[in-house]
């Protein structure tokens, strides 16, 4: 008989019971809805033990490889230790190695840590300003290439955490982070598949990580990166990305400007519109969408309608609280 360990307690799983049944029977407040493996509202992550394959049915690959599964349809044969899907409870410590300007209002923050932090480029961490205040920032670095975590942080007027990062953070400062999370990253395995990456503002951060990760892992299919902003000052790493496009024949970079000022070498229009006008048929493509929440929401719908399969659409909306 398998046993389930969850938040410090172990429960026996009787023959035929699902993991969700067991949790609910012991009064655990576990979210759930359909109880038939469809709605995914009960999703959790396994830390140790082997999952029945069927308990991951319908979960997208990027989450599956991290051990996410559906307790409501999981009838385990093995003992399992499981956790809720959020990682907020765990903290890591890192040291600021540099804060470097990338443009007038974006800095790159380098973070190093004694114990290596394992992550996939494009995931995000929560950076703590103090115990009660944290914000998410995406990982633009690639572990084997950069040797440190790198964030791109845009400054917001009156932004609590972004202003602190821009004004107060110094090399040598120690900061707290949550472990990397999120499912917006590159997975090897389909090296010929075309990849479309669309980002606005610091939505470039995860995409920069993902693109370089894909290239480093030998991705051979086309990788098209659209970076959008209203004004030229909103785009950054332009030269670096142009170099990358010179270096790799399958990588193309499109800096897009939706405002009235469009210098030579930039495309006029919104990144999403331009991407879809260049590639109106997206079946078979893998898509990554990051940045402005309205852009991400609209883009998810439009790339799906253009033929991309739901499971091939990865995104991080940089949602934020209104003041």
């Amino acid at each position: 008989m398998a046993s389930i360990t969850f938040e410090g307690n172990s429960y026996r799983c009787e023959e035929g019971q699902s993991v969700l049944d067991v949790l609910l029977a012991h009064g655990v407040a576990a979210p759930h809805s359909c109880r038939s493996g469809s709605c995914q509202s009960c999703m959790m992550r396994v830390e140790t033990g082997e999952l029945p394959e069927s308990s991951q049915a319908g979960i997208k690959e990027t989450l599956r490889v991290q051990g996410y599964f559906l307790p409501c349809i999981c009838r385990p044969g093995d003992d399992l230790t499981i956790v809720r899907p959020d990682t907020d409870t765990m903290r890591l410590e890192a040291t600021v190695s540099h804060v470097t300007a990338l443009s007038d209002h974006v800095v790159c923050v380098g973070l190093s840590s004694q114990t290596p932090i394992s992550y996939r480029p494009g995931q995000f961490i929560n950076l703590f300003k103090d115990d009660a205040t944290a914000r998410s920032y995406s990982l633009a670095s690639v572990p084997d290439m950069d040797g440190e975590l790198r964030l791109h942080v845009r400054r917001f007027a009156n932004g609590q955490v972004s202003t602190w990062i821009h004004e107060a953070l110094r090399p040598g400062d120690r900061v707290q982070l949550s472990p990397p999370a999120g499912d917006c990253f590159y997975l090897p395995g389909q090296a010929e598949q075309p990849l479309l990456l669309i980002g606005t503002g610091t939505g470039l951060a995860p995409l920069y990580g993902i693109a370089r990760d894909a290239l480093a892992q030998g991705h051979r299919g086309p990788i098209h990166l659209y970076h959008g902003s209203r004004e030229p000052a909103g785009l950054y790493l332009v030269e670096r990305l142009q170099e990358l496009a010179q270096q790799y024949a399958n990588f193309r970079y499109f800096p897009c400007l939706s405002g009235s000022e469009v210098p030579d070498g930039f495309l006029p229009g919104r990144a999403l519109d331009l991407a879809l006008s260049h590639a109106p048929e997206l079946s078979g493509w893998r898509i990554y969408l990051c940045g402005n929440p309205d852009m991400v929401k609209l883009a998810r719908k439009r790339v799906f309608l253009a033929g991309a399969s739901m499971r091939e659409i990865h995104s991080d909306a940089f949602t934020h609280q209104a003041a």
Partner: protein
Amino acid sequence: MSKNLFEQIGGEPAVNVAVDIFYRKVLSDDRISHFFDDVDMERQAAKQKAFLTMALGGPNKYSGADMRRGHAHLVARGLNDSHFDAVMENLAATLQELNVPPALIAQAAAICEGTRNDVLGK
């Protein structure tokens, strides 16, 4: 014993393929897309899967009362027979695209018909 509709169509793997096609049709259909617009897409896709599984006679735990409750907020927004018919049309077109034989499509339509009063809160 003969296989039921859900098994004949190909079970869960077939439904996974059908979800993308069906949901794309629904979102492109001006008659009904507004009901689906403001719901998170990924969650919505999971619900479409629940819908298709049910329409195809697959294993599900929804009762008539669940259907009534689950669509009540949509009925309040004006959900009526014409929208129901539009969903049925999109379902039939999806199954045709997947080369499901007409006799099986008719079976799926009959299952859906059976939920009409509950879905529309009649």
